[in-house]
């Protein structure tokens, strides 16, 4: 307990000292390219200060510490709005998984470059017809029997930061004649290779951090394979649980409740401060109760982690509740403003602006596990309720009605 607190304290002090150079204020008005460049410098600074790869093994260039230190650092880092978003996926999943599967040498170089922000990896899983149903993916990898190489064709979608990525990990179908989970294989690819085309997808809120990625006869060697042929689904699942412990926010990465309270003291309803109105009071009180409960659940799981216990799947609960609550609260906050609520220049961030929070909330409710999938996870994994009916179960992939 004391160790973690001391670690957090040191991290906080260092982060405070960096805020002016890299934090929210330093980023205002930057173009995406400038912000990315600042981000790379920030990542290098973290690396030099011993705060990159906190929970990674030392032989991989990490700090050899545990998830608690990593979480403590992330929570403190969150407060200043540093440009770390470009590296979250890269360092969270693709690089760790390739470190597990590839032979020594090259992988250490890649890991160091990624930890310093010089290189970025992306994760090529979802497809137009395979979102929640990942195993339904259609991108093909066909073996060139002459060379043993693989030829990749197909389309990936929702690939975060693919437009800046140097490498990626990809799951592709290598055998369509077996049931869908069994015909997949996992590779890494060079995102600059011939035949790879990246096209940013503009989202409803106006930003473009996800991409379509097209593979057109992209040739890779069999040495780029991670795990056995046909074992891709397992490696993909392994990838997804690596980031099991990451910092959460009871406000669902939206504005803090205190912001609404502050506004409701000056805004008026029926000629009195809005905070006096029962409708406002109900939202404030119930949201507080939800967020306080989420924070307590999170604290409990950290304590369990610290005590060496395996925490439960409370991540699903946290994401489900926090983002949905944020969406409803943001909608209400906009409503409360009356015609003033219409104003939005697109510049606010989702952590301090109700419109920005509201307009990006639907993405939050879908990306990284849609509400419906989270409810299934809770129902099946925690409560032991039956799996949904799945008519494609056990059926060869190429026999499933598309």
């Amino acid at each position, binding site marked *: 307990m004391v160790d973690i607190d001391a670690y957090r304290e040191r991290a906080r002090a260092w982060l405070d000292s960096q805020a002016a150079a890299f934090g929210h204020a330093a980023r205002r008005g930057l173009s995406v390219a400038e912000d990315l460049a600042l981000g790379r410098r920030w990542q290098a600074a973290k690396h030099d200060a011993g705060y990159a790869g906190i929970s990674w093994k030392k032989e991989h260039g990490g700090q050899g510490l545990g998830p608690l230190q990593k979480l403590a650092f992330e929570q403190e880092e969150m407060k200043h709005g540093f440009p770390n978003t470009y590296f979250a996926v890269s360092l969270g999943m693709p690089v760790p998984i390739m470190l597990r599967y590839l032979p020594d040498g090259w992988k250490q170089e890649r890991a160091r470059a990624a930890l310093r922000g010089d290189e970025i990896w992306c994760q090529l899983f979802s497809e137009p017809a395979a979102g929640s149903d990942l195993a339904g993916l259609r991108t093909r990898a066909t073996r060139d029997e002459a060379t043993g190489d693989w030829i990749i064709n197909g389309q990936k979608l929702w690939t975060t930061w693919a437009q800046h990525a140097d490498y990626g990990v990809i799951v592709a179908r290598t055998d369509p004649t077996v049931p869908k989970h069994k015909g997949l294989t996992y590779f890494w690819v060079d995102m600059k290779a011939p035949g790879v085309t990246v096209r940013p997808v503009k989202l409803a809120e106006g930003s473009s951090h996800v991409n379509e990625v097209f593979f057109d006869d992209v040739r890779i060697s069999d040495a780029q394979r991670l795990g056995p042929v046909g074992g891709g689904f397992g490696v993909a699942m392994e990838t997804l649980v690596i980031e099991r412990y990451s910092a959460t926010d009871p406000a669902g990465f939206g504005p803090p409740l205190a912001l609404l309270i502050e506004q409701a003291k000056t805004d008026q309803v029926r000629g009195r401060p809005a905070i006096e109105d029962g409708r406002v009071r109900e939202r404030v009180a119930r949201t507080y109760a939800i967020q306080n409960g989420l924070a307590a659940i999170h604290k409990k799981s950290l304590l369990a982690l610290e005590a060496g216990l395996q925490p439960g799947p409370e991540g699903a609960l946290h994401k489900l509740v926090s983002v949905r609550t944020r969406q409803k609260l943001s909608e209400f906050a906009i409503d409360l*403003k009356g015609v003033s609520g219409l104003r939005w220049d697109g510049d606010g961030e989702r952590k301090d602006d109700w419109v920005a929070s509201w307009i990006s909330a639907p993405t939050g409710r879908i990306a990284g596990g849609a509400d419906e999938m989270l409810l299934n996870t809770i129902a099946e994994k925690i409560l032991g309720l039956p799996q949904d009916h799945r008519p*494609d179960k056990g059926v060869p992939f190429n026999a499933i009605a598309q």
Partner: protein
Amino acid sequence: MSLLYDEAQQQIATEAARVLDDAYSGERLKALLEAKGAYDQEFWKTCSEQGWTAVALPEEYGGLGLGLVELGLIAEACGGVACGAPFLGSSHAAAQAILRFAGEATKAEWLPRFAGGEAKGAIGFADAQDMLPVAPSLQLSNGRLNGVKPAVSGGGAADLAVVLASGEHGPVLALVVLDQTNVTRTLVDTFDNSRVTADLAFDGVEAIALSGDGLEAARTILCLQAVVTAHEQVGGAQKMLTAARDYALTRKAFGQPIGAFQSVKHRIAEDYVLVELARANAQHAAVHADHPEFGRYAAAARLSATEAYDTVSRDATQVHGGIGVTWEADMHLHQRRARTLAIEIGNMIFWEDALVDALAEAA
């Protein structure tokens, strides 16, 4: 008047939907989102060419002499395509204000222009969050307006505004021509820019005071606006409901259409319920435009239409999964419009209060 649409009314609805579907372009509407102060001029041209601007005005002023029911049906069709201009509702409201509270000369001057669609009207009642301020900050004295009316929908392009001001004897509605010196329109960036929302500043600008108690008159106009808007909201909600239904039938996951999963299926059924309640309320209010309890019917229509459009557009986005949150999809157009229509003429709290005041007084 009956709650069942007659043949002529059904024909108006069908024709409006046909015309608009032809003219609709999601691309054009999304371009407007990124251009402050622009609206869909094609759409507005359609409104006047089709005579929609004339529908609910009296024949003696160039109107077609029909009423809220018919205008509602047209608004519903416009809502379905998230139309790119706010003027069908706001011009009608401005015209009604003139018809009800202005002198004959003003009527003769303006109503034919509204009927023909040459004039566009805007309504400016609210002071920030206060939808119907008892003491508006805008001042009218000696026939001159001074002060600012903030965030007026359509204010950036309208020809005439009806504003709620503080007169010499309390709140009063005033009619002001916007295209004159000493009127400053500052376009406001919003999350739904085709509404051409603007702050209107007046520096000693000539204006005509309308008759009657300003707050009462404003409330009357708002109720009319609420019923037209409710139809527009129902149209938008119906569009999103249909989109969600269609997507749930075609998109497959785990080997079956996602509409076979009750989480999707029942969500869409619940949305249908919201749309049908809103539709019935809107229609009921339109049919009872002259009923002594019109105010409460209008409020009921307003509340259920707002809830329906917000909820159904939110749910339709969720049903569409990743596709639903892209710029290319139309879901965000409707979510933005749902929020805009929910706010422009008074938020949920305002209308709940209006309804409860009416109910409590009667009880």
